[in-house]
């Protein structure tokens, strides 16, 4: 075990894969963003820079090239940058990567990991702040993952890179600097396994990606009030580990969902629906959903802040369920 940043754990997983498989290639640069963590990729780029291809600004064809290369026998990593740009390749993700295996009757495999940064980033405004995880999950044939801790990202990215299916990794740049213990050895965390990030007994908070950080902070606030919150991180949206989530809801009888995306048809709504369907008898209170307000993201800092859930708003919602 070594304490590392999330950014360093990403590099661990990628360099492991570059070393292990000469047919592993990456398209796109700036995989650790431009906020200071890119320095962790220097050694990686020095050793494996020639395995990276710098594409033109053409997200559709870039995605297609990754998909076609994967079909031809390579394993591919395609970096989109901001998730908003991935909408330029939406058709390629859904109508090409997602369907090829099934539609070919199992003949074709598409081992690609697509990587993008979603969410509120400070000044991203209406066109650089998209959180498309709910939209992505509303399709078949695409694994959707959102690891949140350094340990998770190493294990899940390793699993994703070895997976024979397309994986869409909807990342958040606010996670890059998070530190935590990361096993030194190679390991994989199976895609489709949730994790209880904090155990509790009174209320379950299901959150993904950066919202897990808000949820953990909310749990601290609630603890001071004597409310014991359990924070469940699905980690993979598709396929979903319903079991871990439902077990927690059955235990606490209360559910708060937190999502950085717009609420309508969001992943938070999916979890709330799951509870209503499969844990109805256990629910002692209405489900509470927190999500980004349904507006294009406004630029002005106080407005951008106001539209997002926060540890405080989560704590308030959870507290309300206790009465």
């Amino acid at each position, binding site marked *: 075990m070594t304490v590392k940043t999330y950014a360093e754990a990403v590099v661990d997983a990628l360099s492991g894969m570059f070393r292990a498989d000469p*047919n592993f*290639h990456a398209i796109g640069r700036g995989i650790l963003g431009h906020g200071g963590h890119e320095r962790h990729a220097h050694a990686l780029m020095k050793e494996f820079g020639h395995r990276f291809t710098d594409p033109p600004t053409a997200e559709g064809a870039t995605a*297609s090239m990754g998909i*076609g*290369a994967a*079909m031809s026998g390579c394993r591919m990593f395609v970096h989109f940058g901001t998730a908003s740009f991935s909408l330029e390749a939406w058709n390629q993700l859904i109508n090409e990567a997602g369907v090829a295996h*099934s539609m*070919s*009757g199992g003949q074709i495999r598409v081992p690609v990991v697509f990587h993008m940064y979603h969410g509120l980033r400070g000044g991203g405004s209406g066109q650089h702040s998209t959180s498309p995880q709910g939209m992505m999950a509303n399709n078949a044939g695409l694994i959707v993952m959102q690891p949140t801790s350094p340990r998770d990202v190493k294990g899940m990215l390793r699993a994703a890179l070895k997976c024979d299916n397309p994986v869409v990794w909807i990342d958040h740049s606010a996670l890059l600097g998070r530190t935590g213990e990361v096993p030194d050895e190679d390991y994989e965390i199976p895609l489709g396994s949730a994790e209880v990030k904090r155990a509790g007994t009174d209320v379950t908070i299901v959150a993904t990606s950066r919202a897990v950080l808000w949820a953990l902070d909310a749990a601290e606030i609630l603890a001071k009030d004597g409310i014991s919150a359990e924070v469940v991180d699905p980690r993979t949206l598709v396929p979903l580990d319903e079991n871990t989530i439902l077990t927690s809801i059955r235990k606490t009888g209360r559910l708060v969902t937190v999502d950085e995306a717009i609420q309508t048809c969001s992943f938070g709504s999916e979890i709330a629906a799951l509870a209503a369907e499969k844990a109805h008898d256990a629910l002692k209170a209405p489900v509470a959903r927190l999500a980004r307000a349904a507006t294009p993201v406004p630029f002005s800092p106080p407005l951008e802040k106001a539209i997002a859930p926060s540890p405080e708003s989560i704590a308030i919602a959870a507290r309300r369920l206790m009465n």
Partner: protein
Amino acid sequence: MAETPKAAERIALFERMLLVRRFEEEVLRVAQAHAYVGRQHLHIGHEATGAAVASVLGPEDLFHTTHRNHGYLIARGADPGRALAEIMGRKDGLNSGRGGPWHLCDRAAGFQSTSAMVGGSVGLAVGAGFGLKKQGKTAIGVAHFGDGTLDEGICFESFNLASILQLPVLFLCENNAKEGQRPSSMLAARALRDLPAALQIETVVVDGRDADAVRDAAADAVAFIRAGKGPVFLQAQLERWPGSHQTRPEFPTGVTDLTLAWDRDRISGTHADWIRDHDGILLYAAKLVAEKAVSRDDILAVDGRVTSRIQAARAFAEDSPFPDAASAADGVFA
């Protein structure tokens, strides 16, 4: 230029294209018998191009096709029985019934995903070229697509990528736009090739009715690409088969009568022009006979062989059951 091929090679090429024609006619017959076959985009009228290109590719070359894909599968050796079964949604279909007519796939015959999204095949084939190059193989990626495809931005982007990265990709464009009709393509260029040419891609235009010409042009293009000189845009000029726009299949040109190849006076009817001037199969049969490369009987003997293969294929497809409904959601992930 490739050497003039032997008669045996030419008759083999003729057999390849006739197999496609008889296959597509069988698809229409099945549809007329009200068996379910989805919506059809047949390769009738394109066979000379498809078979000729298929004849110069190796089994390692990776092909991405469009909605108009049957011809390529059959010409490259996919089993006609399993292909027809797929078109009919049967269990023994190439894709186990999950793909249907727009998406025939036979990995063993070098076919990757077939995309019915206009432009889809182009981007994927560029990926195949990228992957094959990275794997150090001499195989190439092939994108088959129609003239209308050049309108899509993904097609332009993919040309650009292939050119920048000098990828081993053959862009095979079947231009079936008929003068005077609304073409599939609305490209503002003077000629389709102007777009790839502007992106510094080598371009070749060939008469797509002339199987020998297509074979030679394709052989040259493939040699160029395998030599690492970058992608080639090969455009085959064709004229859309009069039956190709029907939502409900018909035989506007009738079942192909090979004797018309040498009995040209008997060509008649509304679509006589197309049959006389644009049917690459009749043109090739006529040429082979005229050049005495083969006899009329050789031609008819080929037809006999082909027709019985297709009959067997139909029997196979019709015998195949529909997949079990309980399996409907299986096989989503590898």
